[in-house]
């Protein structure tokens, strides 16, 4: 078994990407796209004049970074660089573990040599498709502005690239300056459609078989609605691929770690804890800035509670299995309340700003968070008895919210319960659906879904102050660019973004020269993986024989005493092949009882064994090898 990490990814929106060679088959794990690299481009200008003034004052090396230094061109999109080095035709299976993990898939499937089977959960596939369609729709604005793209755009020329500020170069060439590769023109809507035809969708825990040998099942990972971890079983053993997982998420079904128990090998691919490590540092610096709108432009929300809980959690730690499980659960409850608290905080801040006459702009791309936030905001507004409209502006808003309402099976317990008891899951999307239940309160709720910022219905219903949810979190695409331009000078308005987004660079084009943005920014870190403390307990509970960790966890594991564990482990680095031995030397074989019964065996007393000549037919089915009576002529 061979494992190669192609990309460690970058947070929630750019999950890692790996290749696994197992019993003769090559499996690609996720095919994401790095949308944060869009930051090097300038959003579509309002009037074409700035472009002319943007003439390069040449030979100026390392010029300071400002709005004008961003590339004014139709953006290209950064795929997994190392994947290009692999022969597409040798990939047998592609496993998708989240909607984000399939954003780069059309680049792969439009290749003529692509012949692999793609598996994704039903919901990840659907949401992923909507996200890709939305991306294509948003990109159209660029195309309309710049016209059709030529083979090699001006900005990709060497001296042009060389004259860019160092911050942008770092994004373009990678942090190590390794190379400029993997920048592709965006796929078309037709590519997305073709791609979806190649995706085979599964339910959670549905077993699927590839070539009779590999059995694969997806189990909920809790990161996002429909996201999953994979368990791959072959006659020589089983492998669990653990991507970023959340034990007790707000919307998605919780992390189903029990189904991954007793896998022989665990491929640990949750990098979130590495990001979280520096999060804590940053938090310490600004944790006293809870009254953010008084003096701080940049605000990071932290909850001291989380630290308290962590300490409690560690002290409760015990070796006993039952306690382990209990402790994970205990921690999960905290996770849930902690995340809920973040949302409540966003809600209460939003209401404060609206009271002050400003509007709230929320360009968050996590659907689970958005749905839950819509819910909380609706409740908060109702409690305050405020008649403030909530607009959701996206080309797929209607489809997405409607879809979220018909998949109660894929949601967390709390929402499932609500569905079972009340026959509804989310308030969003119900407005367009509920007609019979006129007595329900949600009609009071002013929630509107619009496909685009220029749609007529939006213009007629528009009213400020308001709360707007819209894409895209990169601030380069979609309705958010226009709304931000409108509100960036308003000190009473609030922008809610995620901690993961490089706010400095992202908001650069919206800060006119030398003037700081007046709009207040709330930057919120959402949970997007297993915390380090829990990963330790989790692995104890899963009882694997071998674990493969990312290299960056080596130091942590040393500190945490992973060396005393019951399993062996190794580390992997980007673009380095790791050999993982099969835990069993021999494969399993089932022999039909009829066949065994007719055997004539001889006993070897010295060796204490019996031997018998065996003759039959080998059948490989559902990942099991069986020997049955052959049809001897």
């Amino acid at each position, binding site marked *: 078994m061979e494992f190669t990490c192609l990309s460690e990814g970058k947070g929630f929106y750019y999950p890692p990407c790996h290749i696994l060679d197992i019993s003769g088959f090559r499996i690609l794990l996720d095919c994401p796209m790095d949308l944060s690299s869009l930051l090097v481009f300038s959003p579509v200008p309002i009037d074409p004049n700035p472009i002319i003034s943007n003439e390069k004052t040449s030979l100026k090396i390392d010029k300071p970074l400002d709005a004008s230094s961003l590339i004014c061109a139709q953006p290209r999109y950064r795929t997994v660089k190392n994947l290009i080095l692999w022969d597409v035709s040798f990939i047998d299976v592609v496993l998708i573990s989240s909607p984000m993990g399939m954003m780069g898939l059309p680049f792969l499937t439009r290749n003529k040599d692509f012949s692999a089977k793609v598996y994704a959960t039903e919901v990840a596939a659907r949401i992923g498709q909507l996200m890709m369609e939305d991306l294509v729709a948003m990109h159209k604005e660029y195309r309309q502005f710049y016209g059709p793209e030529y083979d090699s755009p001006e900005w990709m020329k060497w001296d042009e690239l060389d004259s860019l500020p160092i911050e942008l170069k770092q994004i373009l060439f990678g942090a190590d300056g390794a190379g400029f590769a993997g920048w592709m023109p965006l796929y078309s809507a037709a590519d997305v459609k073709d791609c979806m035809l190649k995706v085979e969708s599964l339910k959670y*825990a549905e077993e699927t078989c590839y070539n009779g040998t590999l059995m694969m099942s997806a189990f909920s990972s809790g990161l996002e609605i429909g996201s999953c971890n994979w368990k791959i079983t072959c006659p020589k053993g089983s492998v669990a691929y653990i991507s970023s997982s959340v034990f007790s998420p707000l919307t998605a079904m919780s992390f189903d770690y029990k189904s991954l128990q007793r896998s022989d090998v665990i491929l640990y691919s949750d990098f979130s804890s590495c990001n979280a490590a520096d999060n804590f540092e940053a938090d310490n610096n600004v944790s006293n800035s809870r009254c953010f709108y008084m003096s701080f432009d940049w605000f990071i929300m932290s909850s001291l509670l989380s630290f308290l809980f962590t300490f409690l959690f560690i002290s409760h730690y015990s070796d006993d299995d039952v306690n382990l499980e209990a402790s994970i659960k205990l921690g999960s409850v905290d996770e849930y309340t902690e995340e809920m608290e973040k949302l409540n905080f966003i809600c209460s801040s939003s209401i404060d700003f609206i009271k002050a006459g400003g509007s709230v702009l929320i360009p968050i791309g996590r659907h689970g968070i958005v749905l839950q936030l819509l819910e909380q905001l609706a409740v908060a507004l109702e409690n305050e008895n405020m008649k403030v409209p909530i607009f959701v502006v996206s080309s797929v808003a209607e489809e997405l919210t409607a879809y979220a309402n*018909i998949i109660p099976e894929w949601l967390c317990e709390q929402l499932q319960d609500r569905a079972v008891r009340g026959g509804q899951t989310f308030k969003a999307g119900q407005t367009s659906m509920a007609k019979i239940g006129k007595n329900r309160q949600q009609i009071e709720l002013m929630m509107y879904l619009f496909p685009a910022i220029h749609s007529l219905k939006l213009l007629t219903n528009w009213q400020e102050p308001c709360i707007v949810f819209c894409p895209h979190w990169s601030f380069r695409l979609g309705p958010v660019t226009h709304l931000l331009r409108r509100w960036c000078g308003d000190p009473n308005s609030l922008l809610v973004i995620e901690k993961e987004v490089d706010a400095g660079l992202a908001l650069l084009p919206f800060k006119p020269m030398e003037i700081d943005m007046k709009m207040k920014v709330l930057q919120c870190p959402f949970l997007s993986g297993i915390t380090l403390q829990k990963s330790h307990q989790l692995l104890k509970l899963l009882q694997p024989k071998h674990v493969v960790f990312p290299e960056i966890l080596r130091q942590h594991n040393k500190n945490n005493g992973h060396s005393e564990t019951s399993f062996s482990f190794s580390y992997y680095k980007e673009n380095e092949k790791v050999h993982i031995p099969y835990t069993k030397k021999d494969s*399993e074989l089932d022999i039909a009882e009829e066949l065994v019964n007719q055997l004539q065996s001889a006993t070897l007393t010295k060796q204490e064994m019996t*031997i018998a000549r065996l003759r039959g*037919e080998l059948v490989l089915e559902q990942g099991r090898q069986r020997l049955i009576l052959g049809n001897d002529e």
Partner: protein
Amino acid sequence: MAIECLVLGAGQDVGKSCVIVKINGKSIMFDCGIHTGYQDHRRYPDFSLISANSGDFTDSLSCIIITHFHLDHIGALPYFTQVCGYNGPIYMTYPTKALAPIMLEDYRKLIFEGREEEKQFSSEDIAECMKKVTAVDLKQTIQVDKDLQIRAYYAGHVIGAAMFYAKVGDSAMVYTGDYNMTADRHLGAAQIDRLQLDLVITESTYATSYRDSKYVREREFLKVVHNCVAGGGKVLIPTFALGRAQELCMILDDYWEKTNLKVPIYFSADSFSGLTLQANMYYKILINWTSQKVKDTYTTRNPFDFKNVCSFDRSLIHAPGPCVLFATPAMISGFSLDVFKLWAPDERNLVTLTGYCGSGTIGRKLMVAKPPTRITLDDNVQLDVRCQIYQLSFSPHTDAKGIMDLVKFLSPKHVILVHGEKPKMVKLKEIIESELEIPCYHPANHETLHIPSTRRIEASASDAFLQSCLCPNFKFLKTDPRQDSELDDDSNNKRKMPQLQVCENRVAQGLLITLQKNQSRKVVTENELIDTIGTEIHEEKFAYCCPIYFPNSESRDISSFHLILFGKLSREFPDLNIQDCEDVIRIQSFVGSFCSKAKCPYRTDVSFQSVLDTVHFCCAWSMGDEELAWRVISTMKNLKLSDRIET
């Protein structure tokens, strides 16, 4: 090993479905229904038969599986969990879990309300019972415990209906519950994988009927309704709140849309707290469980958002003008009876009977009535019935063809029929046994069946063995075209048959080693055996030094003789691979060469020490090639003069 199957309900009967299956020591209860035809203890399955000695059901059952929310499949569940005290896992699909409490509550009110002494379970019991339920999705493989695995497949009968697959060790079975093999207006057809099964337990409600297209029957229904409202009549459709109501509503709503009818369609909203409206809410979020057609239209419009349907106010009973009213319950009592009393005397009106009506109910009376007539109501009041009566002819159950298709597709080793009437079951059993050659049973209630199950023996296999199994073993069969034309004059047929046919017949050959110590088994190839058991190879060989008549042997050299011999053998054995290298002839394990020794130990003709014109050829072979070796030797011995001349 055997599968033990105890039928507690729906054996040669319809009602209180309940089957206990014990596979390799794991007991599973499939369905836990009530019999709506009985009012006494016969209403419930006889649970006492489950555990003969102890009364602890939690210990004796591994899990309960409920296929769908109809009362004859779920009705006794609250009783079993809350009164009998079963506390183990219960599995059902998400829609069933969502809709079952509505069904159970409806039933509880209907049967127990006002009859306190008979009360078997309360609202709280239903709620408590539902808390113990684990909801499952289709195709999800659920590991109930270490050995027991279950999986749900779409059954199409009502929303959320599922067939269940259960596997313990090597034995596997499917319990179908109720299913429909053809898609209807709002649900898809049953779907299942091809599985290796020891047993299929299938429903057989329509074991002998064959139905034609659903659309013909739908049209007929619409025509009757349309004619009635066109003539200013009112249509009463007494129905259960779930399933049938939604299907008919969809048909009518669709028809109304197409024909632009403006006649109002009502749902009765008062008597059962808007049960149907509540159910519609659920149908909307459960759209993924409906048919593909419904799902496809979903993005533009939720098909359960009935445009022409509104809720009914009691005051509207007396309102003039035509209308269509859905009223619960189906067998006409309670609210639907109130409406019926008012509307029945008018011959313009129509009553549509939608399903099964228990004996003694007004529904049953109407089924046989020929209006205009008079029927007796409960309180000995006579009622003039002049309205038309129409019986719906479509059903969400599969017909005989569907049952046969499913059984044929699954090809289990055994079939058990439940949920049907005995005479029909007998007929179907005969067809299954004769046409499909699968043993089939139709046990009565409380009967236990024992069915043998497959078992496999686990072993580990070496890589070399698996490699050797993958070696292709082609066989080429030449067909003689002349022979063909003699046998078969059909020229078309001849052209289809290629002259050379290739068939592949892979054989796995190896050795099974069983360690006496721990009975662990391992399969290896012959070559590996030596390493495994740690001994040396002892090979048995035969040798014979054969005298060959060869004139003038002294004057000729040995190599020319070799050529003669080789030529002869090649001609005699064209099929064999004969190797000639360095004065040694090899045919498989046969090795032969000239023997120049004066006293070869393998020589038999010792008496003639040196016969003129005779050379000796020393041969050796192993046991497997004995027959071949003797054929070769006899060929050599008969080496004729002619062979010599040719060279």
